């Protein structure tokens, strides 16, 4: 479905990613884990088009989309929940959700999708008219996921959905992501919270200092003793 091939990328002269290759397979949940600063968010920016790589290719559904601008990638079905959620703080929760349906594929079914987002996160129905800037961290994350779903995406790309939200909400968010993946949505998720992320994953990649250093099915990654020490900070 979505593949990175030999991606090199960085910011103004500093190279962050070196020869990244990874694939998110259709209907699966793929997880990218690694310590802070490894380059996970940068990888997702290469995927959603906010950062253009200096080398390598981004392939989506068999097409090379490396040179395609971010807004066209979204319109083609790559939906993002970016790092820090990036809601529009002065729009209401529902205003944010509706904007998620901006591209033609989302707009046609906006009302039905909105209803299904409210079914997925009933809390948002109560908070619909609250400005996004006034929502709690957990609610903001729900809006961010819902907003991404409003575009009727083929792949949902999430950057640390557990960051900055109450612990009891974290498992709820992961549950919902699992539910979406069971409903047939392809998911690519970046997480520091490796255990919980790998639990709902079909396949995992481990990143360190801008490289993919390991990959495999989640149970194998969880088994590796040295990996635990290095990346999960668990003795």
């Amino acid at each position, binding site marked *: 479905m979505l593949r990175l091939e030999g991606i090199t990328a960085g910011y103004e002269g500093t190279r962050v990613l070196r020869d990244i290759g990874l694939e998110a397979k259709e209907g699966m949940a793929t997880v990218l884990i690694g310590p802070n600063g490894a380059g996970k968010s940068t990888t997702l920016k290469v995927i959603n088009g*906010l950062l253009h790589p200096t080398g390598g290719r981004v392939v989506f559904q068999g097409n090379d989309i490396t040179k395609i601008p971010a807004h066209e990638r979204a319109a083609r079905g790559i939906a993002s929940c970016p790092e820090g959620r990036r809601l529009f703080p002065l729009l209401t929760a529902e205003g944010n959700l509706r904007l998620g349906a*901006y591209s033609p594929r989302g707009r046609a079914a906006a009302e039905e999708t909105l209803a299904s987002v409210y079914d997925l996160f009933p809390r948002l129905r109560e908070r619909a008219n609250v400005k996004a800037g006034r929502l709690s961290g957990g609610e903001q994350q729900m809006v961010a996921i819902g907003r991404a779903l409003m575009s009727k995406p083929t792949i949902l790309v999430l950057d640390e959905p557990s960051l900055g939200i109450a612990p009891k909400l974290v498992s709820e968010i992961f549950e919902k992501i699992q539910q979406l993946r069971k409903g047939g949505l392809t998911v690519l998720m970046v997480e520091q919270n490796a255990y919980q992320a790998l639990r709902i994953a079909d396949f995992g990649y481990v990143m360190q200092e801008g490289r993919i250093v390991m990959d495999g099915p989640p149970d194998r990654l969880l088994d590796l003793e040295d990996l635990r020490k290095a990346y999960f900070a668990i003795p």
Partner: protein
Amino acid sequence: MADFVALFLTDLVLGLLLGCVLAVIAHGLNIIWGVAKVVNVAHGEFIMLGAYGAYFLYLYGGFNPLLSVPIDAAIGLVVGMGFYFGFLYRELRGKESMGLQSELVTLVSTFGLSLVIVNIAQSIWEHPVGILWSPGAAQVGPVPVPFGGLYVAVVSVALIALTDLFLTRTYLGNAIRAYTQDIPATQLMGINPTVVAAVGIGMGFSVTMAGGALLTVWLPTGIDPTKIGILYAPISFVIVVLGGPGKMWGSLVGGLTIGLIINVGQLFLGGSIALATAVAVLTLIPILLFRPEGILR
């Protein structure tokens, strides 16, 4: 005493009517600022061009200023998009937000544009010109209400309401509001930032030039290229800051405030419009000190 009450009421009504047209000319500046965080120093010159648009439509087509409004608005939309692609696009393209460097570039380039326009205008239009249109007045008790000013006020408020509806009720309008808050996030919604910025700025110029057409009704001494920009650009800036930059109804609140201060104020200042205008501008100080986000919340 009864005389004073009549004068007071008359100035109150005129102040409100004038406030509406001041609101709409400031509204264009407000939109451009709100959308792109660009301070258009050439704002006054585009008001002037709108006024000339109305004048030539009157001269060659017999249009009254109200009929020129939609035509000026359409021209303004095209001019604004041209302005975006000519002056701002290269500077803003690929930027996640407006930095100090870009702010300076846009300030200097719009200042340059303003000088060019005003100098050309003064060399080809040497004398003030006027539009003869007097639809009369109604006498309401002691207060004469000029129909021209009344129509202009209605159209002004309607224009502000239309822009507000567009920005809050349509996909494109909401995309413009989103753009002002977070450009990269807008792109992730499938929104083309170039289109949104061009439309937003086009809309600002559209309202500015339409405002110029409406203003002609309030210019008894005619359209004077040496005066319009110098007088109405600063008033527009004051109104936008008073009402709250980026808030659509802030333009109306600021405009009415200034209109009232000028008209009612001069009554208490020995009839000096200049002094009253100075007082109106001075209201900026307490606002900036105590409510920098503007009168509207």
